[in-house]
């Protein structure tokens, strides 16, 4: 078995689903001739033709809205938003049309669409190529929101998204594209939407995260282990609908929880997880639900020292975990 990178897993999933179902097509900026700015769609235009791998003009409203329309008449669009920083114009379509289509038509029209969004910092991308922006979609009922952290999940969840019948916003953290490698099975496989994964079992506290922050949380957990603190690490994988059961069960077991997200703190994904934990399993807690998040500033700043200052990392996570343990 060869080691497959995170981005190769995505390319494989796209190619296999396009092979499997002729309704699947791709549309986005620079995805065809160029194979994508990160090469996620490399070779697909040659293989499937320009009808099914469409190089779009710089039109994020249309990339989203046109995909919704195509989904309504029998296609399975997989549009790409090149950077999460550029998704804002699409939101009119994704929020007002895509998320509400089934609802506002009494279930008559549906929107089986998977929007791939390249996101995330720690790559020196600057203010406009580092944003993550998942919380905007996380708060919108009608959308499925996924953010994988391993090649296996990237491939399996992308396949589940494409085969499903709901609009999915599928976030790909660009820091993971070529960093994370894994042996993948040769045969076809999917990963269920809505299920988190316990990556490391532990008994002293639960660390919940996703995307790049899952890897940072694992690094912290390994350091903590050497100090005698046993952290259970949960990778959410799907943000909406999130796996309440797995997180609650883990909190019941450890009684302490640390929530880690890359984006700004206020109104982020972890604010919701935190509120739900206090609503549902408050009696089991021995310490306040604690968050480690990006700074509450407009976006990730460019200069390397500021970028690193913005982002949660293993040291910050481990530091917060110690405080939770000392409470």
């Amino acid at each position, binding site marked *: 078995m060869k080691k497959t990178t995170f981005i190769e897993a995505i390319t494989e999933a796209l190619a296999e689903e396009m092979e499997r179902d002729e309704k699947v097509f791709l549309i986005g900026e620079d995805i065809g001739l160029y194979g994508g700015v990160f090469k996620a769609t490399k070779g697909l235009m040659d293989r499937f033709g320009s009808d099914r791998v469409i190089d779009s003009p710089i039109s994020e*409203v249309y990339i989203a809205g046109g995909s*919704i329309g195509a989904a309504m008449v029998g296609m399975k669009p997989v549009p790409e938003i090149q950077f999460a920083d550029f998704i804002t114009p699409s939101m009119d379509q994704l929020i007002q049309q895509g998320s509400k289509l089934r609802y506002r038509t009494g279930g*008559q029209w549906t929107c089986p669409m998977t929007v791939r969004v390249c996101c995330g910092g720690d790559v020196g991308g600057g203010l406009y190529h580092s944003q993550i922006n998942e919380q905007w979609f996380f708060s919108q009922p009608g959308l499925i929101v996924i953010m994988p952290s391993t090649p296996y999940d990237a491939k399996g969840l992308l396949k589940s998204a494409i085969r499903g019948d709901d609009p999915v916003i599928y976030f790909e953290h660009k820091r993971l594209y070529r960093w994370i490698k894994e042996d993948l099975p040769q045969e076809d496989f999917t990963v269920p939407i809505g299920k988190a994964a316990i990556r490391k079992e532990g008994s002293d506290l639960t660390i919940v995260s996703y995307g790049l922050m899952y890897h940072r949380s694992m690094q912290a957990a390994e350091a903590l282990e050497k100090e005698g603190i046993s952290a259970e690490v949960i990778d959410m994988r799907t943000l909406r609908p999130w796996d309440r059961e797995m997180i609650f069960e883990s909190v019941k077991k450890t009684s302490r929880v640390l929530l880690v997200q890359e984006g700004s703190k206020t109104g982020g994904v972890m604010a919701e997880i935190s509120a739900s934990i206090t609503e549902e399993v408050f009696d089991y807690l021995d310490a306040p639900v604690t968050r480690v998040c990006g700074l509450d500033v407009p976006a990730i700043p460019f200069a390397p020292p500021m970028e690193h200052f913005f982002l949660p990392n293993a040291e910050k996570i481990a530091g917060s975990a110690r405080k939770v343990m000392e409470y």
Partner: protein
Amino acid sequence: MPVKKTEAKPKVNKTGLSDDTLLGLYTNLVKTRMTDERLRKLFRQGRYAGTYFSAVGQEATTVGPTYGLFKEDIIAPSHREIGAAITKGIPLEQIFAQVYARSNSPDKGKSHPCHYGSRELGVIHPSSTVASQSIIGTGCAMAFQIQKKNNVVLGFFGEGGTSRGGWHEALNFAGIHKLPIVYICQNNLWAESVPSTRQSAVEKFSDRAKAYGFPGITIDGNDVALVHKTAGEAIERARNGEGPTLIECLTYRWYGHSEIDPADYRRQEEIDEWMKKDPIARAEAQLLKSGKLTTHKRESLVAEIEQEIEEAIKVCETMKYVEPEEAYNDVYSTAFPVRRDEY
């Protein structure tokens, strides 16, 4: 499904259409007008909630292009396209059900009084974000092209909708790919309260098509025969892979933006002038002249529609509302049920 072509050459009248076609258009115009006027009245009588967006005065711009489409063709309407919905075949009972938002409502009471749609009949339910239907409709046309289907899409919007960025993105894309779509701009001179001169500096809204590399044309939108012919030619081109057309139909809404708008930003002379150009009176005069329509036939047509309307109202007014828990349904596919909190 191919176009039905009549064997013998049909008799063509002064409008360039057969009497049968003109009568078909006229019937849909009358049905639309009568339904619309009745819905206005019902709103003022407090018989349903929300508000109502009347299209009286503009019927030819929606009936004309829609008449004669295939069932598999898609129309992507806005909120003032009751004529397109009726002409595409949505039964009056469904129109009234949508407005009354009772349990027989096609959207299960979720959206809005004027958001008539039907997947079966190829009518996309409108939404209230202006010009969205052009964007989504363009996506449907993109799918038809990928699927190598013979179908077309009609995208409807007002002149105000052409000011939105997404509208530009959609038409730009449609031009590049020569998509099978016809854009129908109903320029009724007012986008709610903003006059068309404050919407754009272009002389004609159809001039915008130049920027997208396809034909644009401005026509008298209250001449139903002309609208039907012009749209028909554009639809034929679209079906043949020759790409989109932007048709600007000059027209006028007789009443306010919705029933809660007194529309006092308009001059009475302007309203009077446009009411003289009533599209229905013009089609009717032509048909009476040719003998295809008689006063008697007209009366029985009106009586027939009146009865259909009465029956639809009766059905809807005796229908219960959906259970409030219906609010939880149709959020996702059955794979993802919505969590229900208890208070």
